[in-house]
């Protein structure tokens, strides 16, 4: 069973340049064989100068292959993750604007309207009682438990940076008064 693994095209191009006469399946087989062998070997971080040159070259190649591969994988994730990052930023901004519009411009007027109307219903019912009319007998009736309770609702105050600054200055001015 085969599997497709993505790597950066620019990295693959460098490898193709290095082995122009080797076909892709052969190059892939070499990659895997070489990579597997190095990963399975125990890594030796130290490369003392007193070692024979051949051994130093071997240790350095293993070290370089592992370290550079680690960075290459990180870079791959960063570069290919840019699209996801851009999508996340756009989505966050979009939902922020929609949410703000709802909470600032759409919901408050409706809640305030409902609050005023609820008060008016109660006033008229009270007026009916004063005149000896049973409001319970007047249609249509309201199923109060199934309505949204907005009697205590107040429009939220959105502060600007300037108004917050003024409030802080005012607070310290008052705190400084004898």
């Amino acid at each position, binding site marked *: 069973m085969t*599997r*497709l*693994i*993505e*790597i*950066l*095209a*620019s*990295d*693959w191009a*460098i*490898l193709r*340049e*290095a*082995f122009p006469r080797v076909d892709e399946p052969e*190059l*892939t087989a070499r*990659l*895997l064989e*070489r*990579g597997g062998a*190095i990963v399975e070997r125990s890594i030796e971080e130290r490369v003392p100068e007193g070692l024979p*040159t051949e051994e130093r*070259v071997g240790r350095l190649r293993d*070290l*370089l*292959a592992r*370290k*550079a*591969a*680690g*960075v*290459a994988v*990180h870079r791959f994730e*960063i*570069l*290919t*993750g840019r*699209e996801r*990052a851009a999508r996340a930023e756009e*989505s*966050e901004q*979009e939902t922020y604007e929609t949410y703000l519009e*709802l*909470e600032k411009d759409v*919901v408050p007027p*409706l809640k305030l309207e409902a609050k005023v109307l609820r008060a*008016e*219903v109660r006033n008229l*019912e009270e*007026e*009916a009682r004063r*005149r000896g*009319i049973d409001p319970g007998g*007047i*249609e*249509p009736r*309201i199923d109060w438990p199934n309505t*949204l309770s*907005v009697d205590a609702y107040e429009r939220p105050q959105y502060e600007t940076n300037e108004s917050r600054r003024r409030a802080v200055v005012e607070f310290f001015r008052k705190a400084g008064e004898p």
Partner: protein
Amino acid sequence: MRGDLLARFVRELGDATVAPGTVAVDLPEAPGSDDRARFLVYVGLVDLLAEASMPDDGEEAVRILSSSLSAVRSIQPTFRFALFERSSLTESRELIARMRGKDIALTSEWMLPRLRRDIDAYNARIAGLRAALELGLEEGSG
């Protein structure tokens, strides 16, 4: 020159502005997760480049490899941090957008229709009460 290819690869490794285009390597065997397989592919790729870039002189080879290793070690922390920061920020933004999306759906799909339905009911009730009051007045005056 082939000898320059390892140096070029290492130089480009530190460049986060290279084109993000990818190619798919068809692996006849499937070792572990995609990340693990990608690491394996890159280990092989770097070593094949090292092989292609090695001069006959052993000491020169040590110098080239040491210099490349040193360059890779110097960029490694930057990439780790960048990856951590980028993925944390992205995940936070995705989470915030998801949570806000739920709030928006709740408000749009549930609260607003309910408020509008309530307002219609209050208006109808007010009309009914006013009519009854007016009728009561007329009956009283009649």
